[in-house]
């Protein structure tokens, strides 16, 4: 079945440094929809950004990601980390046939320190 693989565990960064959280996926469908959800402490996950278009950069709230079907990747990036970016980030894949089901990766916790 479909699967999503993310940077494992915890990523720690100093404020001001660039952020890159890796996400790769496996699916038999040629037109997947990829999502990044963010979950801050004591909150529920919420959508950060999503994309369907190959090689097109998608941006939201300072973060950006580009879907590359050739490498099955959808890495999340930000040029300069802020303390408020500390959160759990999930990459997710929407199954092509019939929709409905979304497969989530195991999550990457980002901790930004001063």
């Amino acid at each position: 079945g479909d699967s999503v693989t993310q940077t494992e565990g915890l990523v720690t960064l100093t404020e001001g440094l660039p952020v890159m959280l890796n996400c790769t996926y496996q699916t038999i469908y040629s037109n997947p929809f990829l999502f990044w959800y963010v979950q801050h402490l004591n909150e529920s996950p919420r959508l950060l950004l999503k994309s369907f278009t190959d090689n097109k950069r998608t941006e939201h709230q300072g973060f950006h990601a580009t879907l590359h079907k050739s490498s099955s990747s959808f890495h999340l990036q930000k040029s300069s980390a802020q303390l408020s970016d500390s959160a759990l980030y999930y990459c997710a894949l929407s199954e092509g046939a019939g929709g409905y089901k979304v497969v989530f990766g195991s999550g990457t916790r980002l901790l930004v320190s001063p």
Partner: protein
Amino acid sequence: GGIITQTPKFLIGQEGQKLTLKCQQNFNHDTMYWYRQDSGKGLRLIYYSITENDLQKGDLSEGYDASREKKSSFSLTVTSAQKNEMAVFLCASSILGGIQDTQYFGPGTRLLVL
């Protein structure tokens, strides 16, 4: 806008007990989901429902039952609580459940089994 409410916020049970978690949404969304969130394992789908009285099993459905009595509510039952089990159960909804649809999450129910 809308909101998803989950009750109870915290649930402490005994081994072998049947426990019920409830979810309500006022988005008027068609599709609703139950996920289990465990540290390092991401969000795993337990059940989903694409309309009132519909139920579809996710990858983690064993040990759980679900009920969608009306469009706005979706219940999850742990059929026999396992000793020392500790997890967060998240309810979510999306407008139709289509491939591109964003999922909106509730605040979660935290389960602890003694």
